[in-house]
């Protein structure tokens, strides 16, 4: 039963995708209901999985090496999260896409990607993960290009390029790892990799595998596609991209970090540094952005950075990794729920206003208490305000860093880690600042040009979904020991975490201090930077948001595109030269030796048969001389002699 459930979760949505596509050509409303029914059934399937922990399925021979599926605590949590997010984004999809084209295509690939994502999270070896990861990448490409505007097409190209490139580099890493470790099974990998003698090759393999997964997660320096793609994709799709697909990337990073490089401090340091840069860069970009979805996209990047900090700390802390493991898992969960709410709200706003520019949508949320409530829940959640769930996970991550500082301080220096701790708190402050910016712009400020809309602005399922998700964040935060701690405890073994010795007192003064520092930094940044530097008065004397981020500072346009074009040029140049080498040789031989047969004369009447002129035409660079004949004779003698000597 358990193994049947595993394969059902993967294949059922894929079969449903085809069915809904075929039905959608006949009736759109039936299709909409069917898609919803499929996602609901998927969620129930995932819930059933709770009764079969440890379900495993090995499918020999499929796809060459065979596929392995397995369920354990962490993977069941991720599967549940996936199914829930998919269902909750399908609810508002109906009204979001009401006046748009190509819905049938969208739903087809939506459900295909659901099956593929389930495959990733339930996979039992890296081979299976990779196969479903590629399927997910390609299926989700269609979401990004869905709108078919020129921005969407540009964004989707970046998305596809990084997807293909990442997939290939990862594949290379998987080859290497398979060669080195001899297995790709998660439960055997940890032991097999520890036994690998050549650490440098292992790092190369890990780096290659990391590349593809990090690209999907949006880690620096592979984050460049993220803001553009998230902005271009339809809002429900962006919600999934941010809530689940980025976590699929994190899942891969976790496999590399917790199985291949289990408690490897150097690897942990690498992930930590990249995580810190991602966290800060995302937050700074988010602070500068004046587009709702773009800010949220940058925020996603920043939160991924927080999660990566947790992953890195696991490697560094080694046997003391409890807090980091807890923080990583819980921040993944929190971020998914929070971004789900925020992107759905962005979708609601976009359907009514057809705009995402903060200056145009400002004040639109006035008089819409339900929307304001759910936005606020998500904003304080992601900002790490005590009593909400984000506070719990951020505190755990922060405590992980503090614990490492204490360990280091006992041995001597902890300078770098102290810097990282402060950067962590500053990034938390920036999170608060840009979320405040969004909240103030949409729900508090008045828009002098547009009056506040009255009447219904979203349908009932969407409002219900937003309210429930918002309340979940609060409940998780209030009753952290009963809810979040238990989820983390169930997930611990997959990440190879130690058991927590005593429950964390989340609301003790030391733990609250971190949040307080972040709040203060956030307030300073909001009033000092956002209101002061990033706004100006326009001609009517109204203060508007301005985009002060320099246009040229775009990693994709500045580095990657020129690099790729340069490589393409060099490749084409080399191919050209290679292609003509043979021609040159032939030309040279032609000119040296070739006595051209009498020139062909083609009478105009018949082109099949030619007549020949009388004299042979010689076209060599060496004239027809006795010396030349002698030269050739000499060359022949030398060749013969050489042959005789060598025999």
């Amino acid at each position: 039963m358990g193994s049947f459930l595993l394969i059902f979760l993967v294949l059922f949505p894929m079969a449903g995708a085809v069915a809904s596509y075929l039905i959608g050509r006949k009736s759109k409303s039936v299709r909409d209901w069917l898609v919803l029914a499929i996602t609901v059934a998927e969620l129930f399937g995932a819930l059933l999985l709770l009764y079969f922990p440890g379900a495993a399925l090995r499918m020999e021979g499929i796809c060459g090496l065979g596929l392995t599926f397995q369920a354990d605590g962490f993977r069941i949590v991720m599967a549940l999260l996936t199914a829930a997010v998919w269902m909750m984004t399908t609810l508002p999809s109906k009204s979001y896409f009401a006046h748009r084209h190509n819905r049938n295509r969208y739903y087809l690939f939506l459900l295909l990607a659901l099956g593929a994502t389930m495959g990733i999270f339930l996979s039992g070896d890296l081979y299976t993960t990779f196969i479903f990861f590629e399927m997910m990448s390609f299926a989700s490409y269609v979401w990004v290009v869905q709108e078919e505007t020129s921005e969407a097409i540009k964004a989707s190209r970046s998305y596809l390029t990084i997807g293909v490139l990442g997939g290939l580099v990862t594949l290379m890493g998987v080859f290497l790892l398979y060669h080195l470790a001899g297995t790709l099974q998660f439960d055997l990998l940890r032991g097999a990799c520890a036994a690998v003698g050549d650490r440098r090759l292992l790092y190369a393999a890990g780096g290659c595998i990391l590349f593809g997964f990090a690209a999907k997660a949006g880690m620096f320096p592979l984050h460049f596609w993220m803001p553009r793609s998230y902005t271009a994709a339809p809002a429900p799709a962006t919600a999934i991209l941010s809530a689940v697909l980025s976590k699929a990337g994190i899942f891969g990073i976790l496999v590399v970090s917790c199985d291949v490089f289990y408690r490897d401090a150097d690897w942990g340091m690498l992930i930590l540094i990249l995580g810190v840069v991602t966290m800060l860069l995302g937050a700074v970009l988010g602070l500068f952005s004046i587009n709702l979805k773009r800010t949220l996209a940058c925020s996603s990047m920043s939160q991924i950075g927080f999660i990566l900090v947790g992953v890195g700390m696991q490697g560094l802390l080694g046997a003391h990794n409890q807090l980091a493991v807890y923080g990583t898992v819980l921040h993944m969960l929190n971020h998914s729920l929070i971004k789900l709410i925020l992107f759905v709200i962005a979708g609601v706003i976009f359907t009514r206003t057809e705009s995402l520019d903060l200056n145009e949508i400002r004040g639109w949320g006035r008089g819409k208490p339900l929307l304001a409530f759910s936005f606020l829940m998500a904003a304080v959640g992601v900002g790490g305000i005590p009593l909400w769930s984000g506070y719990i996970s951020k505190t755990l991550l922060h405590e992980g860093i503090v614990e490492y500082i204490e360990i280091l301080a006992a041995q001597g220096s902890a300078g770098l880690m102290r810097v990282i701790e402060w950067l962590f708190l500053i990034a938390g402050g920036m999170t608060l600042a840009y979320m405040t910016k969004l909240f103030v712009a949409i729900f508090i400020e008045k828009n002098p040009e547009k009056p506040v809309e009255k009447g219904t602005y979203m349908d009932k399922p969407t409002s219900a979904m937003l309210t429930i998700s918002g309340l979940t964040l609060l409940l998780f935060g209030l009753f952290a020991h009963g809810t979040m701690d238990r989820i983390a405890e169930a997930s611990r073994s997959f990440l190879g975490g130690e058991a927590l010795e005593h429950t964390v007192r989340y609301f003790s003064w030391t733990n609250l201090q971190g949040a307080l520092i972040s709040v203060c930094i956030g307030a300073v940044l909001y009033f000092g930077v956002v209101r002061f530097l990033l706004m100006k008065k326009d001609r009517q004397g109204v203060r508007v948001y301005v985009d002060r981020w320099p246009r040229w500072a775009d990693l994709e346009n500045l580095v990657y595109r020129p690099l790729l074009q340069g490589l393409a040029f060099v490749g084409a140049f080399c191919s050209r030269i290679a292609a003509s080498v043979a021609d040159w040789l032939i030309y040279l031989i032609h000119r040296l030796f070739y006595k051209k047969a009498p020139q062909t004369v083609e009478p105009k009447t018949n082109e099949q048969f030619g007549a020949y002129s009388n004299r042979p035409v010689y076209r060599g660079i060496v004239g027809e001389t006795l010396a030349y004949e002698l030269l050739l004779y000499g060359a022949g003698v030398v060749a013969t002699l050489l042959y005789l000597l060598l025999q």
Partner: protein
Amino acid sequence: MPVWILCLPVLFPILAGAFMLARPIEDRRKRQIYVAGAVIVNAVLAMAVLVWTPDEALTLIRFSDTMQITLQVDGMGRIFGILVSLLWPLTTFYSFEYMKHEGRENKFFGFFTMTFGVIVGVAFADNFLTLYLFYELLTLATLPLVMHSMDGRARYAGKKYLIYSLSGAAFAFIAMIFLLSYGSTLDFTFGGVLDPAKTGGKELLLQTVFILGFFGFGVKAAVFPFHGWLPDASVAPTPVSALLHAVAVVKAGVFAVIRLTYYGFGCDFLRGSWAQTVVMTAAAVTIVYGSAMALRTPHLKRRLAYSTVSNLSYILFSVTLMTPAGLVGGLSHMVFHAVIKITLFFCAGAIIYKTHREYVYQLEGFGRAMPVTMAAFTIASLGLMGIPPLAGFISKWNIATAAVDTGMPLAWIGVAALIVSALLTALYLMAVVIRAYFPGKGYDPASVKEVEDPNRLMTVPLIILSAASVLLGLCASPLLAVFERIAAGL
């Protein structure tokens, strides 16, 4: 089964084709029935022979004890025979529709049917002399197909094809003579025929001769720098490009290289020698070169031809690893690439047949206009790029793991070439797919108003082949088990 049945699938289509050339059938319907009948009967015959193989070999002509024309089926020949016998009827039905606008159908189908027999001859050859005979016949039988339209470009391509192939075969002939004088027999023997008593001290010479033979047979497998004929030959009618220049002729080249390497000189003799370095380098260079050229070729069929150049070298690279795993990888890519590339060419042909558009940039918005064709094209593209779980992924995985397992530095370079080429493949194929489905701004829907899918004779083969490339990927293991048995010398 009586022994003489071995020669039936070789001789029957040659006679049937020759009869058509001598007595042309003017009525299209009668001709179609005749050709379809001949091809299907022969495919069934070939299958029957492949399933119930007689125990003994059939010697047709006997020159001397070592030189005979002999037919017999072994594992390699069985794979190639099955591949060809399955794809030939599909292509024939496709051609019925396609050749309507090319004309001179009697000539085309005559030679097309004859080629079937010749290819089966290549597959059934039991020694190098027989292989050589059918290999040369293959060049001659397919020449009229390449030059079918008889305009300037077609005649140029035909001449180029003839010169390249015949000179290649001449080099291969040299290799054969050396095998005869330094080996015990010309019969295919897994592990090689070289006689250690005779080869002592002549290793360098023999390795040089192997390189000659490799590049000689490699001409048909379009190995760089002897690949030039293949892109030019794409002026041939599309069924020819599809079946001959993606499957039969080029794979006959690969097949001959495998015979030469594994059954002639023997892996143990060549492994680790400089000859292996040379041939592996040539294959790795061709892999990247073919993909790079494909990317900068806007003509769709030429682009696919360059892609074939690259993919044939995947097989050659894997084969020249000279390990059992390498042979498995090569054989799997030989089969999977055949199915995928024939699909791509069929799609290109369907587009040319319906719209006379030949360039990639003319295909904007075709996704909606020709849904079946473009869906097949997309599946095949993803397969060729090696996106799991499609067929191309399995073979690439096999090739790369085989390369990694040898532990040679050159093998790593080859794996890097595979990865780079996969990226280029993604670029040159996805560019077509993206244009077709997401044409972007400035696209005029009126430009595809008249465009539609071709009729069932064309779409049904497309659907069958696309389904095959998915199924082969999902259920690859029985096939791989067969390849492993061949690679083990069974």
